[in-house]
């Protein structure tokens, strides 16, 4: 395995670790708000690391730019969705 693949492997494993952290948070936490924390933060960090690993693996600018765009949109979608879900939960009086 070349150096490039080792780096990509490390990033992918780190990404999968954060996804695991997000899922454990989702399963263990009591109410919606703390689950939102787990999902939006850990999963997005996982997505960034996975995108980074794949960009290293793909090693061409067009793909890397697309991966960065996908990550940034993931960030945007996650933040606004978390806000909307929290607002919806508050409407329930939680």
């Amino acid at each position, binding site marked *: 395995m070349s150096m490039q693949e080792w780096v990509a492997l490390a990033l992918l494993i780190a990404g999968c670790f954060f996804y695991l952290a997000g899922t454990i948070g989702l399963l263990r936490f009591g109410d*919606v708000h703390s689950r939102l924390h787990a*999902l939006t933060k850990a999963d997005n960090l996982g*997505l960034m690391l996975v995108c980074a690993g794949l960009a290293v693996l*793909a090693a061409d600018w067009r793909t890397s730019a697309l991966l960065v765009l996908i990550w940034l949109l993931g960030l945007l*979608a*996650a933040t606004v969705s978390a806000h909307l879900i929290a607002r919806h939960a508050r409407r329930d009086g939680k």
Partner: protein
Amino acid sequence: MSQILGLAVLFLLLNLVAGLWRVARGPTAADRMLAALLFGSTTVAVLLIMAEWMTMPALRSVALLFVMLAGIVTIAFFGLPAGDDER
């Protein structure tokens, strides 16, 4: 390397299944809306790794579409009346 990518996809899918189980059971409507978040992050990573693993670059546009859909589905879910158990 491709074997590792395959395992990563499997791992993330299992994460997705665990998350969906929790979301399906979640008491309030807000819990169910977490499904949109899940699909906005976990499935996107699955698609991107698959694009590399199965050498199908088109999957990256599918991932881009998923990210966009996650935002729109959350807006649609926002329309759910509070506590969808009664109504």
